């Protein structure tokens, strides 16, 4: 193992790592030291570069600059398999198990126990059982289909796979996100056991409480850079960590907001009463007034996106109701929501909103075709005229209705999605991560568009994982944590550290 010159040995050492993608520097000088047997926590906001860093370690991305040593040797894996062979295993947030294969097959996927091409099932099962037992889960049957295991069980299988490679470093990306409370305790027990055997863990989580419990040292990333490293995990004050994570370089230009009391006498466009979807959120109630932008802030998995989707009818609540202009909307039907005047800009623009092959015009009019038809016959002249008007109004570039929407930039694609709803009369726009994949310059423009729509009297319900976006754009902010609204207040009365605190721990600073 590494050279020992007075300091504790370092297992993984990263210096000045840079990774460029077209148009962005995802990593812009990352330093990281991980010692054997420690739990090293990686903290940073969305977009800080954590995922890219993980992929560099996993061998999925090659850094453009910088050096990495692992166990004292230079480390430059060409493929994920090479990284695994070298002893770095990665457990992704979305566990990469093959549901249809058995536990054993998953553990040894890619390096099956075999002789002359025939798998050796008995030996594989025995080895898998050993690994599972080592993880404290000897009760998981090796022949069980992985897809039939609960989330916690699947995670144990993922870890068994990591151990099957004799991993010396295991990277865990938000391992607790999919787990219930007692399952997290078991996860921690496993981590402690692994570290006792000298395995190092890079632990990524948004939950500060967890980091305090399991972590040894903390490295903080911001905008692709290491801003602080090797902080003690248990004793560094929360506000210091939050300050390191937030202090931003890039300020977004947000449009001016109306006065806080401007909406008091406006009618309620949307009213949500006691909405419940077990496992996602519970007893959620709020209202959006005409012209008001209401932002939902919360972690991935907090229930914020599920609330949005349920309001829109893409999911069906087990209790509670959604009212538009005081009248209930038929639950579980996006069609009904659209007829009552809702419109959605979903989180995954490409897979949930756009027909990528089709033209800008076809994408814009797809939700409002009935406006341009008599007995099913399309009036294409009127459709085109409206599309052109929207292209001009939202300044979509290039201003060509026939261009395939796939060739537009992210910001312009998002404008096409917004324009889709503006062809008809809308009461409420539901925006899920409206600036994801949109570059910084275009963001300010989109913010302007959203505020302008609100000024026309449309209510806006906004979800974003970027706290500054919610604070800068919304009039009122609802903070969601573990499926409940834990705070509601005027956006001007909150700052980023306060919201992050509410999101992560539930107590204001």
């Amino acid at each position, binding site marked *: 193992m590494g050279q020992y010159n007075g300091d504790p040995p370092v297992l993984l050492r990263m210096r000045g790592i840079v990774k460029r993608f077209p148009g962005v520097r995802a990593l812009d000088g990352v330093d990281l030291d991980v010692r054997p047997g420690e739990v090293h926590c990686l903290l940073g906001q969305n977009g800080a570069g954590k995922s890219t860093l993980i992929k560099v370690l996993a061998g999925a991305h090659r850094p453009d600059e910088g050096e990495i040593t692992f166990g004292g040797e230079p480390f430059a894996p060409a493929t994920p398999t090479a990284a695994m062979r070298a002893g770095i295993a990665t457990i992704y947030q979305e566990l990469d198990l093959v549901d249809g294969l058995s536990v054993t097959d998953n553990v040894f996927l890619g390096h099956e126990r075999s002789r002359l091409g025939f798998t050796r099932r008995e030996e594989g099962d025995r080895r898998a059982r050993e690994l599972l037992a080592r993880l404290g889960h000897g009760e998981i049957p090796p022949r069980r289909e992985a897809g039939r295991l609960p989330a916690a069980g699947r995670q144990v299988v993922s870890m068994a796979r990591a151990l099957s490679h004799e991993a010396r470093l295991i990277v865990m990306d938000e391992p607790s996100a999919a787990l219930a409370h007692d399952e997290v305790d078991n996860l921690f027990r496993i981590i402690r056991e692994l570290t006792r055997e000298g395995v190092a863990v890079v632990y990524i989580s948004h939950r500060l409480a967890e980091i305090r419990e399991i972590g040894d040292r903390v490295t903080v990333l911001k905008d692709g850079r290491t801003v602080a490293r090797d902080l003690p995990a248990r004793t560094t004050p929360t506000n210091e960590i939050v300050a390191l994570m937030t202090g931003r370089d890039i300020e977004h230009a947000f449009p001016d907001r109306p006065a806080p009391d401007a909406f008091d006498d406006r009618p309620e466009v949307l009213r949500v009463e006691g909405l419940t979807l077990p496992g996602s959120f519970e007893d959620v109630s709020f209202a959006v007034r005409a012209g008001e932008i209401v932002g939902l802030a919360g972690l991935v998995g907090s229930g914020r996106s599920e609330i949005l989707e349920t309001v829109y009818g893409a999911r069906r609540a087990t209790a509670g109701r959604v009212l538009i202009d005081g009248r209930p909307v038929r639950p579980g039907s996006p069609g009904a929501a659209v007829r009552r005047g809702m419109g*959605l800009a979903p989180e995954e623009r490409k*897979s*949930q*909103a*756009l027909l990528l092959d089709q033209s800008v015009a076809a994408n814009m009019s*797809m*939700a409002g075709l009935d406006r341009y038809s008599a007995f099913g016959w399309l009036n294409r002249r009127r459709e085109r005229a409206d599309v052109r008007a929207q292209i001009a109004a939202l300044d979509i570039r*290039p201003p060509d209705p026939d*261009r*395939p929407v796939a060739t537009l930039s992210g910001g312009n694609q998002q404008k096409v999605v917004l324009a889709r709803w503006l062809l008809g009369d809308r009461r409420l726009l539901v925006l899920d991560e409206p600036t994801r994949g949109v570059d910084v310059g275009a963001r300010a423009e989109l913010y302007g568009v959203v505020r302008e729509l609100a000024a026309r009297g449309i209510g806006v319900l906004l979800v974003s994982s970027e706290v500054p976006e919610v604070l800068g754009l919304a009039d009122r902010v609802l903070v969601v944590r573990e499926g409940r609204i834990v705070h509601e207040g005027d956006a001007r009365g909150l700052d980023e550290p306060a919201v992050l605190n509410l999101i992560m721990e539930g107590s204001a600073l």
Partner: protein
Amino acid sequence: MTAGDTDLKTAAVPKAPRVRREVHHIGLVAALVLLALVGVVTEPDNFATSGNVAGILALAATIGVITVGMTFVIIGGGIDLSVGALMALASVWATTLATQSYGPVVMVVCALLVGTGAGLVNGLLIAYGRLVPFIATLAMLVAARGLAQRMSDRKTQLVRPENDAIEALSTTKVLGLPLVVFIFAAVAAAGWVLLNRTTFGRRTFAVGGNPEAARLAGIDVRRHTLMSYALSGLCCGVAAIIIMARTTTGSSTHGDLYELDAIAAVIIGGTLLTGGRGTLAGSILGVLVFTLITNLFILNGLQTSDQLIAKGAIIVVAVLLQRRGLRAPT
């Protein structure tokens, strides 16, 4: 914003790349011309006669009408393997003694209703029963053939002389072409309008291209899917009328393997098997190319087995060319 500013911004954008459908159609048209030339050269006396041309078009009519329905189903993201069997069932049902006793109009209505009804069952199973289209329509293929055999007792049912109005669709000629060719043309034209000029057509592209986006845009994806399979069934009913006119029979063996010919025609016509993209004109051209090949092989006295090999080769070549033509510009 100044005028110069606008110019700069638009100038920076490369010329709009359009999907190259036209190019693909030119390829198919070229293939048709080439095949016609081969016909003229190899069989100068028989090929370019009005009788042969009428024959080719009449031959193309049955599979052509089915292909129109298949195009909707495939653009909508599905597949219909039951088309040949539905046509057979509709032809048998329309030629039973009981149906025939009501006269030719009832026979026609019967064929259309049987086709549409069976298509609705397909659609219900797929849209509301959540069966995979391949499996649901495979089951329908098998079951509809079985039902047709049962109804006909595995015998070929003749269209009775008093119902010769059916046969007249094939024997009566206008402008030198039998009426069934005009039926084919009418169905193709109606299909083109439905696909390109109506909300139904637009939604077909949306549902096939991105069902989740269609659903979130408020489109009733399930109802639309149901309707597209019913439409395919209706086309099978029309095809049954054409086959009855041409053969004066109803039989459980009609339309064997038509599903493969129809799918192949749609594919070489440039429609994506994964849905969301395609044209009706391409499908029709695909049908014509196939029929022309059949005709050339028959005229030249070649084996059907060679014909099958040639068709197979054409499918592969067409799809390979298509992939190059449609590769997204970056």
